[in-house]
């Protein structure tokens, strides 16, 4: 079957969901989830420092989620891919940033997140050159592996419309809370499993529950927005699981880091994250 190009979001098939390439490459599922979560967090942080609009960060995170369902973490370095995702998203959203700015900012956020000494990256150093090379190749890989399906439809606009329909726009908490859930959900797989209407409904569902706000159930309000209860509960579960355990600081980002991490995991867990860098 020819890979079609479309503006709608591509979703995973059940096979793609149950057997991501990283799983085939023997990366344990919890680690993969953590790596995705961490990479998305770094994209968000870098985007803020680059003063990019939220759509660019959101697009970048969805691209990263998509990419690692067609390519393995062991083969394509997360560090290069996350830079490429933000770089590409900045172009897609008509707010391009320079390669050198992307590299510097990511270098900074990674060092900060790992509590390392923050030293500016030398422009003509080997490290900079390698990161630049990695970024350029990762961008082409991103386009190639995704079959150029890099258009991302986001649910933010829908959320506002839905809130208006439900008469919730002036509620003191729900709009902001639902908005935040949409942002956080970017760190999970929901944007590659569901279309925007369902995701927007789930964010309202979860926010309304938090605020103990009653919404029409006869008929259920979400049917108007093409959502169903099972999907919303599933999405909510994914979002809430983000808040359960804080991320460790030694999450591997390059292929080499991942390799040595996986070796160490076979042995009892070491408590020295610093030697991972």
């Amino acid at each position: 079957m020819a890979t079609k190009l479309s503006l709608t979001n591509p979703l995973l098939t059940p096979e793609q969901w149950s057997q991501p390439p990283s799983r085939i490459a023997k990366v344990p599922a919890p680690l993969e989830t953590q790596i995705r979560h961490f990479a998305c967090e770094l994209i968000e942080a870098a985007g803020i420092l680059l003063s990019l609009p939220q759509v660019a960060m959101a697009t970048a995170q969805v691209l990263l989620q998509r990419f690692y369902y067609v390519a393995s973490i062991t083969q394509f370095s997360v560090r290069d891919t996350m830079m490429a995702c933000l770089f590409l998203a900045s172009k897609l959203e008509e707010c391009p940033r320079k390669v050198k700015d992307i590299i510097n900012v990511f270098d900074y956020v990674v060092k900060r997140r790992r509590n390392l000494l923050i030293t500016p990256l030398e422009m003509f150093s080997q490290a900079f050159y390698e990161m630049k090379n990695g970024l350029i190749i990762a961008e082409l890989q991103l386009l190639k592996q995704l079959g150029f399906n890099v258009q991302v439809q986001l649910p933010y606009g829908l959320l506002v419309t839905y809130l208006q329909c439900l008469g919730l726009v002036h509620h003191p908490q729900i709009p902001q809370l639902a908005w935040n859930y949409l942002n956080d959900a970017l760190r999970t797989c929901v944007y590659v499993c569901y279309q925007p209407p369902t995701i927007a409904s789930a964010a309202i569902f979860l926010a309304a529950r938090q605020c103990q706000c009653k919404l029409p159930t006869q008929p259920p309000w979400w049917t108007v927005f093409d959502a169903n209860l099972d999907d919303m509960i599933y999405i909510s579960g994914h979002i809430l699981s983000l808040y359960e355990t804080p991320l460790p600081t030694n999450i591997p980002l390059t292929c080499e880091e991942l390799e040595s991490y996986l070796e160490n995991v076979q042995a009892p867990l070491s408590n020295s994250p610093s030697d991972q860098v």
Partner: protein
Amino acid sequence: MSQQRKASTDQLRLAGCRSVHLYERLNRIAEGSYGIVYRARDRQTGQIVALKRLKLDQETQGFPITTLREIQALLIAKHPHIVDVKEIVVGDTLTSIYLVMEYVEHDLKTLLEEMPSPFLQSEVKTLLLQLLQGVALLHDHWIIHRDLKTSNLLMTNRGTIKIADFGLARKYGSPLGHMTQMVVTLWYRAPELLLGAKEYSTAIDMWSIGCIFAELLEKVPLFQGRGEIDQLHQIFKLLGTPSERVWPGYSKLPHTQTFNFAVYPPSNLRQRFMHLTNHGLDLLTRLLTYDPKQRITAEEALNHPYFQENPPPKDPSMFPTWPSKSSGEKVRLIHSPVLPQADHAEVQVDFSPAS
């Protein structure tokens, strides 16, 4: 975590680019700044397609944003009069990337050059209507093409126009924001761009359509400037030098202060297009209006009385066909039989030695 999701059949799948080797290259169609275009055959279905190889050699800022815009614009603008991009395939190296597009036999420029006589009025109307429909859709979706010209208009053997080459197209917003002025091929470039206006909009496409309209009527491009100044000079010569009266804000444009242009009397389009009806001339005048705010929009142009009056637009299926240059067809010379030789014709005596 269990996944309970209904798999729908028409859902877009996540999958990588396919290989270019699924297509068999037939011949080269054209080469431009954007890359090389080949005619190719799908090995599985036998369908003929156009393969456009992207040029990625000199990129310092990664994958070119213009190509991303082109793909995005083509995805948004699905229309019978806009060329269809089917998929994107990759070659053996990471930098060989090809757009697979529907193959269209002619481009309007070559066709106009090769045609023995210009299009008929009814044919011009059909082509112009199709062009306007395509452009109206683009503008409706907040896309400016920015490079409309006859060589970017493809034409099938069934009298259908397809707008192609979205290499300069981009989305615009409200407020307009900064966009580069280095757009549109010189001969089709609107006066506000030539005069260095900071902001521009969909009206620049409409000016290009005006130039194309005239070219369809006359078979030759309307303004063929040798440079930006000469281009302006030619425009002013035909349409009269603009003034603050016909174009409010004209005197404040960056280049009006730097150059002194000769003052020409108002438009003599009528003398140039003597055989065009009044409605036709009115449409041309509205397309070639100096003030971008007053220039006709694609939507308005579609409802112009020119398309209602006689002769009506010709049905596309009634269009004549031409040999397609891009698929290597040649004009077949038909040798009519020689007249029978009369008996009293000069007798050819064969002096060669008998064998």
